[in-house]
Structure formats: structure tokens, C-alpha cells
């Protein structure tokens, strides 16, 4: 289920998770500092920058070698009855066809985005922005621009907007295992689908 408080939504049955996140105070006044994507929120950034770009067959960009972004279905069959198959989103589009309802055309869509890192430690900068929840994101295939509307961070709400190449260049490191983000409702062509999302703590400079 989706819980929304003050315009910020999570996909969870636990409203306390959202209430706790919304209580995080604003402690930074600038938005031009390194950003530490916590609580799995980097999965949303890479859902847009890698996943949607793959759906649109966007031109390749040079992602860090320590990064992997995979679509790992958690169901046996997709919405056209084919066996669900995983995909390496950094090199290929998702392999599952999904549709919101019987009235909709099946589209090649992500199912469960899992971001992993291998040997990419980083030092936590003293001056930084910690991102905890995002309100939404978008990828524009025409301009190759990724937009993330951050809902809860140490700098308050703000909008992160960069080209995919800039996002790739700014990824400076990651720590730990993938943390499940509390849900992404992904909208494409007007069809809203829940997409699982998980990512380690990650930093963009």
C-alpha cells in the first residue's frame, strides 16, 4: 500500500517509517554540496538514470566500474505470460513486459531494481547533504536529463537535475549492501506500476 503524508509517499504498510523520515530536521542551507543518498534512495536516482534510459535505448554513458544495476524480477511470469527474466540494465533494457491493467498496452518495464557496488569506499565529507526520501523523479529521453525531486534531506526539499553523463561522472563511491527503498511508483505512458528498489549508501559530488 501507499502512505502519503504532506505530499510525500512511501510504498509500505508502516506509516511510522514515513513519520520518522519527515521529522528529520533541516541542517544545511546549501544544495551545491556532495549528496549522500541514504536509505536506498540512490536506487531512485539510478532507476531514472540507468533503468528508464535503458527502456528508451539511450546512448551508452561511462558508468563507474564498481557499479552494477540489475532488474531482478520477483515473480515467475510477466504480464504477457512469458517467464520473467532478469536484465543488466547498464547494458540492456528490461526483459519483462508489464501493464497496469487489462486496458493497457504491455510495455517493457522495470520490475525490481537492485543496485550493487564492489570496492567503492568513500570518506563521508563533513559538509554534505544527506538524502532520505524522494518525492519523484523523471528521465527525459529527448534531453537525456534526469530529475529527482528530493522530499526529505538535511537540506530540506530540493530538485536534483543533471544529464545522465553528469550523473555518471558524479558518482564517487558507495558503501555496504543494497538497502530496500520504501517503494517507487513508476509512471510511464500513464501506466503506474510499483517497482522494487534497493541500493547501497552512495555519494554524488
Amino acid at each position, binding site marked *: 500500500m501507499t502512505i502519503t503524508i504532506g505530499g510525500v509517499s512511501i510504498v509500505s504498510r508502516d506509516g511510522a517509517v514515513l513519520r520518522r523520515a519527515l521529522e528529520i530536521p533541516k541542517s544545511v542551507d546549501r544544495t551545491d554540496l556532495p549528496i549522500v543518498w541514504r536509505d536506498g534512495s540512490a536506487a531512485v536516482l539510478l532507476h531514472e538514470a540507468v533503468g528508464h534510459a535503458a527502456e528508451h535505448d539511450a546512448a551508452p554513458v561511462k558508468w563507474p566500474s564498481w557499479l552494477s544495476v540489475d532488474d531482478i524480477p520477483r515473480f515467475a511470469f510477466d504480464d504477457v505470460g512469458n517467464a520473467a527474466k532478469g536484465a543488466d540494465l547498464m547494458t540492456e533494457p528490461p526483459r519483462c513486459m508489464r501493464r497496469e491493467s*487489462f*486496458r*493497457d*498496452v504491455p*510495455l517493457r518495464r522495470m520490475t525490481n531494481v537492485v543496485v550493487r557496488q564492489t570496492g567503492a569506499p568513500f570518506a563521508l565529507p563533513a559538509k554534505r547533504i544527506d538524502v532520505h526520501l524522494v518525492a519523484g523523479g523523471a528521465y527525459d*529521453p*529527448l*534531453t537525456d536529463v534526469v530529475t529527482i525531486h528530493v522530499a526529505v534531506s538535511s537540506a530540506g526539499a530540493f530538485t536534483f537535475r543533471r544529464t545522465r553523463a553528469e550523473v555518471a561522472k558524479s558518482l564517487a563511491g558507495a558503501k555496504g549492501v543494497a538497502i530496500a527503498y520504501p517503494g517507487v511508483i513508476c509512471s510511464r*505512458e500513464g501506466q503506474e506500476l510499483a517497482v522494487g528498489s534497493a541500493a547501497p549508501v552512495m555519494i554524488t559530488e
Partner: protein
Amino acid sequence: MIYRKRGRVARWEHGRVIVVSEAGDAIEERGIFEVRPIAGELEARLDDVAAVAKALRNVKAERLLISHGVAEHECNGVSWREETRRLHIALTHKHLRALVDRADFDLDEIARTARVLARAGAERDAPPRLRLAPNVAAALLPHLAGVAPPNVRLMQSAGGLDGNGADIQEFCVDGASLPNVFRPSYRIRPVRMPLNLRLECDVDVIDRDIPEAVALLAPVAGLMLRVLVADRQRVYPSTIRVTRIDAVGHERTWYPYAAGAFGSEIML
């Protein structure tokens, strides 16, 4: 209150024609809104939406949705039938995207927009005086509710029935409670909204020598419009903020923005 709908629609989307027949009940009692599908198909002859798409094969479209639907509604002892045509196309040229939404299959207007878009140059500041084409003005109207300048009147136009089968009343949208409801689907609880908006102004003389905003380049955000401006031979993208409206033309065309808006030329 029981609302019942039977409908049939043909839709062109991603190179396919989808024909959907659907019927359902919506029951609202003591604060509970419940919907369920019901048996029974509507017999209706639908347009060949694939033929419309084929006629647009020469324009560069990032997205094209074409639909024709027929629906029968019943609510509060009133029955009514409606027919809708919708066409959405996103035309592209370099990094620009022009958005066109129509309630008919008039393709000349789309071809004209595509030709103008293909001549677009670099971004420029908005000209001091500008006229909005009816399709651009219609998209703006829902955003003028409560903030329309004092020299214009934002009106709901009388005619037809609302989502509960009640007559749509003539009404000035000035912040007072709205008399009618919009029900885009039987599965959605009807919401109070102004329907079939139009803008009125005592001045209706439009200067046709000033630049024209011919198409939207992005969905309207509040009173900010990102538009494609045609100024004689020069065409460019620009961003404008609507702060005043000098004149509103008389000729109106209905567009499917929000719960409907009649677009007419507007001079800023």
C-alpha cells in the same frame, strides 16, 4: 447514489489498436465509495484510429495516442450518451518537444505545428507582447482559477451534464464552491471541478502583428508557460509568465484540458 456506465473505446497506442469494452457501477453511500464491473457490452461503431495514425506517419512523433469512445451513463434517474475523440501527440525537433492535445482528428493543425517546430532556433526571451493560440490558451485556463486578473472573467460554460447527471450551470469561477462534478471514470469518485471553462474579457480585439505562442513545449506549471513562439519568419522556444491579459478573442474551440476548456486567442 448509484452511477452506472457502459463504454467502448478504440485506442491507438504504441503501434497497436486496443479496443476495450467495459461496464461498471459506482455506489456511494454514507461516505463509502464502491465500484465493481458489471455485465453488458455497449454496441457502438468506432472510428478507424489506425487510419488516423497512418495519416500522421510523416510527422516526427515521440508519442502518439488516438482514441474514439462511446459511453452510456445513468445516474440519479438520468441517462445520457457521449462520444469522445482524443488525440495526443508529442512532436519533436532536436531537444524540443511540442505537445498537442485535441478533441478531434483535425490533422492540419498538427501538420502546421510540426512545420513551425522544424524551423525553431535557439531559446530567446519572451517578447513584451504576445498572443496565445487557442490551443495554448485552453491549457492555461484551469490554472487561472482563483488567480485570474480582474479585467477577465473565468467562466464555467452551461450545457451538457456533469458526472452525476446534473445540468452543467453557467458559473463564474471566482473561489465560490463549485456546483458541478467531474467523473473521468466510473472507478474514480467524482470531484468538484469547473467544467468547460472559458475566458471572457471586455476587450476582444487581437493584434495579429505581434508574435504568437503556437504550441506548448511542456505542460503548464501554474502561470508559467514554456511555448514555441512564431514571430514572422523567426521561431524560437521561450518561457513566459502570465501576469496580465489584455484581450480575449471571441472564437472558441473546446480542448480536453482538465474537465474541458474552450480555447480562444489571448493577447498578453
